[in-house]
């Protein structure tokens, strides 16, 4: 029987290539993700490890991260140096301060505006390598981190400017460039290495965030850590953690990994989707192969093969195909991983590192690929065992037309699953709160409903094809009508083929609808909440500024100067403050609650803010208007009390006098101008809303605006039009990435279409010859197959889009609880996707169609 199976494999190798292709692509994606993951982690380890180079023991504050944290006073370094067994020790300082590029604009981003660092004088303990120039040796000198220098286009000899906490400017001469390695920590920050004296002077701080030490020969890391711990006892004002260099490196990598791993998980999910689609394709191929081999199998049974042997032969075949496909898939995965790490390395998203090949991806690839194939072949193999020996005696002159057996159980099963799926979905949408449960319920419901569609699909695919094929049938005549008839003849086969495509297209459609809805919602919020032309904001996040003790507000003179300019008709100041809502329990953002306030003169000139209930006129001291769309605002009504505490511990109480739609000036709530003044230490502005005067062109108003803001490096200018464009581009990028990630699944599904068609072409050799003899031209025969592929792709795409549309909308509703989403269906985009799927289907039919058309009529007729 082994020989029979292997001989069968050899004879059908071309038919199995498509099966193998599906496995190759699925496994390729999995292996690629795994290898890329290993490689990226190794790169990360390498680069992060520079912070731990030669470090045997590190003493740091409990909350210290790699680049920022509370400082220890300078005497700690001498204390460590004095410990027996310490060969060398270094104190590390860092301080978050805005760094400006050569045009005077912020070089970092809102979350990481810049960091000043000093890493000690001990060469062996420096966590960087000098790549150009020299290290800063005197005051007024600085070295820039490689990526920072690249971004700001700095070279040795240029001047870099650092702003201190009160926005005083400190120009420094760039004397060198250093590579710190760690992609995560420095990639988007602006890192400036200065002397200890400069850091102390500019930041106004003299402490270290950590002290690192190298052990003398013969002293173990653990031993030295013990000694240092004993010498530096923690005190109430100094929480101290002493760890070995090994643990330190491990922690560094782990911290860096957590962000990165989320990305790897997403990749893995998409790799999993590709594998599921591959399973469909493989299952379908084996089913068709078994159907085509009925005579042969029956003959084997006639000559004495028992059911077990028939079963075994099919499984053996699947294992061989699975193994070969997985091996090829692994090779493809190596290529994918190489491409990923090169591409992302070039973008600075991962540290560059040669490919890391461990045994895990090899094993996982072979196991996943082979198991997937084996599982896919199980049902077809069982079916093969049911072939009666009698089938060898029947004469089958033409390809079979299969009906759907067992209609009723199918309907019952599909209905039951759909009921459960719909139940879960409804349950998910009914739940509120900000936990993940509703989303998970909806996803589970969606998966179940998809399964229900799968079970019912063979029953409905025929009528669907007929309906969709009606118009082409009228337009193209006989070839299209033959295509409809052919696509309908084996509903199970067509259903499985199209379902594979349905998954990919459905997910893309869901993503399209979700992103379009988010965009429409954000758009509405922009129009209602920012009824202005420009918005000035501070270029640094409040949270970042607060933790670094920076005063980053917009100086009040800025709004004064803008107000004096006739180019602007409205200049409204907004001040804001972050507080904590009480009680904070159960809120996933820790109860963070942002308050904003408009200067009354400015507010008066702006269009009235639309409220869901209550009145703006009631906003006075002690009252508050809360956004009704936010998790905090949901469920509160006018008259309720809101209790808050400020960062400095002040307890506040407000009475709600109105509920607004969406966020107001990027805050959760509005309070009066005088209440805000009482809350804050710095009297600076956080935002300025600006409207150009009538008759001033956008170009002119922009020029006037920039002329003023150029004197204020931390003022970020947003035009509302630009914000819209930015959101659109982010959303387009999201769709492109998702489509790209689903590309594998879609290509596998298209291979499935190609596979089904080429097997069908083989099966219909005689029929094709007959219609050719009766007057179908070669071109028309090809058109028949193109039309059949297009119909299958269309059915998959249409049903997939329908499901995706539905769940895309439900999911957005659940993912943003409390927010009234503006449902938007990107009809054009969906139609385009469906059109592309149909076209891709036609492309998948090119090879089978060529093969069908090439056959000579006479030889095809002679084939039994």
């Amino acid at each position, binding site marked *: 029987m082994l020989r029979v199976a292997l001989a069968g494999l050899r004879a059908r190798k071309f038919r199995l290539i498509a099966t193998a292709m599906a496995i190759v692509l699925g496994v390729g994606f999995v292996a690629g993700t795994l290898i890329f993951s290993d490689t990226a982690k190794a790169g990360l380890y390498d680069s992060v490890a520079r912070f731990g180079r030669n470090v045997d023991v590190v003493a740091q504050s409990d909350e210290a991260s790699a680049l920022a944290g509370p400082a220890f006073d300078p005497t700690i370094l001498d204390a460590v140096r004095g410990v027996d067994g310490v060969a060398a020790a270094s104190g590390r300082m860092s301080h978050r301060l805005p760094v400006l590029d050569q045009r005077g604009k912020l070089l970092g981003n809102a979350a990481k505006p810049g960091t000043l660092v000093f890493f000690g004088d001990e060469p062996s303990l420096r966590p960087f390598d000098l790549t150009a120039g020299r290290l800063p040796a005197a005051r007024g000198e600085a070295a820039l981190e490689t990526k920072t220098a690249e971004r700001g286009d700095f070279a040795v000899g240029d001047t870099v400017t650092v702003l201190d906490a009160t926005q005083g400017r400190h120009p420094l001469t760039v004397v060198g460039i250093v590579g710190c390695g760690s992609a995560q920590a420095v990639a988007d920050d602006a890192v400036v290495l200065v002397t200890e004296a400069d850091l102390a002077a500019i930041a106004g701080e003299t402490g270290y965030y950590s002290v690192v030490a190298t052990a003398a020969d013969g002293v173990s890391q653990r031993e030295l850590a013990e000694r240092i711990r004993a010498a530096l006892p923690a005190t109430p004002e100094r929480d101290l953690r002493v760890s070995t260099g090994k643990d330190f490196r491990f922690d560094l990598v782990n911290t860096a990994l957590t962000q990165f791993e989320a990305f790897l998980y997403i990749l893995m999910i998409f790799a999993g989707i590709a594998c599921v689609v591959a399973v469909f394709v493989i299952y379908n191929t084996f089913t068709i192969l078994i159907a085509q081999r009925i005579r042969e199998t029956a003959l084997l049974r006639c000559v004495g093969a028992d059911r077990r042997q028939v079963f075994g032969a099919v499984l053996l075949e699947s294992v061989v195909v699975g193994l070969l496909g997985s091996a090829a898939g692994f090779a493809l995965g190596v290529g994918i991983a190489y491409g990923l790490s090169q591409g992302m390395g070039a973008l600075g998203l991962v540290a560059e590192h040669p490919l890391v090949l461990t045994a895990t991806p090899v094993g996982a690839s072979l196991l996943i690929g082979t198991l997937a194939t084996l599982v896919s072949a199980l049902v077809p193999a069982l079916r093969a065992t049911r072939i009666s020996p009698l089938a060898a005696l029947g004469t089958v*002159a033409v390809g079979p037309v299969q009906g759907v057996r067992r209609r009723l159980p199918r309907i019952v099963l599909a209905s039951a699953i759909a009921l459960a799926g719909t139940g879960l979905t409804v349950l998910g949408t009914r739940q509120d709160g900000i936990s993940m449960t509703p989303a998970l319920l909806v996803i589970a419901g969606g998966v179940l409903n998809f399964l229900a569609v799968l079970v019912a699909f063979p029953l409905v695919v025929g009528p669907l094809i007929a309906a969709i094929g009606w118009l082409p049938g009228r337009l193209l005549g006989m070839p299209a009508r033959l295509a409809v008839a052919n696509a309908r*003849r084996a509903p199970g086969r067509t259903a499985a083929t199209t379902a594979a495509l349905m998954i990919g297209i459905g997910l893309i459609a869901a993503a399209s609808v979700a992103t379009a809805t988010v965009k429409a919602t954000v758009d509405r919020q922009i129009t209602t909440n920012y009824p202005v032309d420009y918005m000035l904001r501070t270029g640094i996040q409040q949270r970042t500024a607060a933790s670094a003790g920076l005063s980053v507000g917009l100086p009040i003179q800025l709004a004064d100067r803008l107000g004096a300019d006739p180019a602007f008709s409205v200049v409204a100041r907004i001040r804001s403050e972050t507080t904590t809502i009480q009680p904070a329990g159960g809120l996933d953002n820790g109860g963070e609650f942002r308050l904003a306030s408009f200067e009354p003169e400015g507010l008066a000139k702006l269009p009235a803010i639309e409220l869901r209930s209550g009145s703006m006129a009631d906003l006075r001291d002690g009252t508050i208007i809360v956004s009704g769309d936010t998790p905090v605002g949901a469920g509160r009504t006018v008259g309720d009390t809101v209790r808050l505490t400020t960062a400095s511990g002040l307890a506040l109480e407000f009475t709600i006098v109105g509920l607004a739609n969406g966020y107001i000036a990027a805050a959760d709530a509005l309070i009066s101008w005088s209440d805000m003044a009482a809350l804050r230490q710095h009297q600076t502005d956080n935002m300025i809303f600006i409207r150009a005067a009538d008759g001033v062109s956008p170009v002119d108003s922009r020029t006037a605006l920039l002329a003023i803001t150029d004197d204020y490096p931390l003022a970020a200018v947003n035009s509302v039009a630009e914000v819209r464009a930015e959101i659109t581009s982010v959303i387009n990028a999201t769709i492109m990435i998702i489509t790209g990630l689903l590309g594998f699944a879609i290509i596998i599904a298209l291979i499935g279409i190609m596979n089904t068609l080429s097997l069908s072409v083989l099966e219909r050799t005689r029929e094709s010859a*007959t219609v050719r003899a009766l*007057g179908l031209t*070669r071109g028309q025969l090809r058109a028949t197959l193109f039309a059949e592929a297009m119909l299958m792709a269309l059915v998959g795409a249409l049903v997939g889009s329908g499901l995706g549309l539905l769940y895309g909308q439900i999911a957005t509703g659940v993912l943003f609880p409390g927010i009234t989403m503006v449902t938007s269906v990107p009809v054009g985009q969906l139609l385009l996707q469906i059109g592309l799927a149909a076209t891709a289907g036609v492309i998948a039919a090119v090879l089978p169609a060529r093969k069908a058309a090439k056959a000579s*009529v006479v030889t095809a007729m002679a084939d039994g």
Partner: protein
Amino acid sequence: MAITAAGVRTAVAVTNVVKIYGSADTAVHALDGVNVTFTAGQFTAIMGPSGSGKSTLMHCAAGLDTVTSGSVALGGQDITTLSDRALTRLRRTKIGFVFQAFNLLPTLTARQNILLPLDLASTKPDQQWFAQVIDALGLADRLNHTPAQLSGGQQQRVACARALLPRPEVIFADEPTGNLDSRSGAEVLAFMRRSVDDLGQTIVMVTHDPVAAAHADRVVLLADGQIVGEILDPTPATVLDGLSRLGA
């Protein structure tokens, strides 16, 4: 079964046709200089031993296969020089086929199968003619059945209707009764005979069965790719006699 001498017209003329399969040392001379004409309105049977080239002759005469040399004229038009496309169009209306294995499309109903050549040519059937053919074949109550729901004899009758409906210049039938029992076979043959007599249809049929051949007006004998004789107004006895002389 006499043919009227007046107005004799040649439907298909095969002139010096040579068909060689393969090349060089493996070459098979399936047809070796065949000259034969099929008169319009006549029922011709082609007979000969297995492998003598009967099917090949039919395929070449019908333009399904190319000839190595020689020419084939259909209704006066040389078809050996036509492109595949032109040949295909020709087949839709000028040539009918009846196959041994029926070759109906399993996805189409009997009616759709019968109308297939006309559909391909985008022409409407003549309703009266359609009714007449269906009636003659006794298929009126079977039109909406698929081939799987029809017996072999019924399937072959559908195939006959399909071949006849476009009123082709000639119908080629390769062993049309080969897969049928004698009664169904006799029905099909009787129908073919009638369509020649009553409708003036031209039919060329390949058969191994002397009784079937006896339905024809003329039997052409083929051996080793050459025409080796002909029998006019055949009877089973004269056909058997002619065949046995081939063997000798």
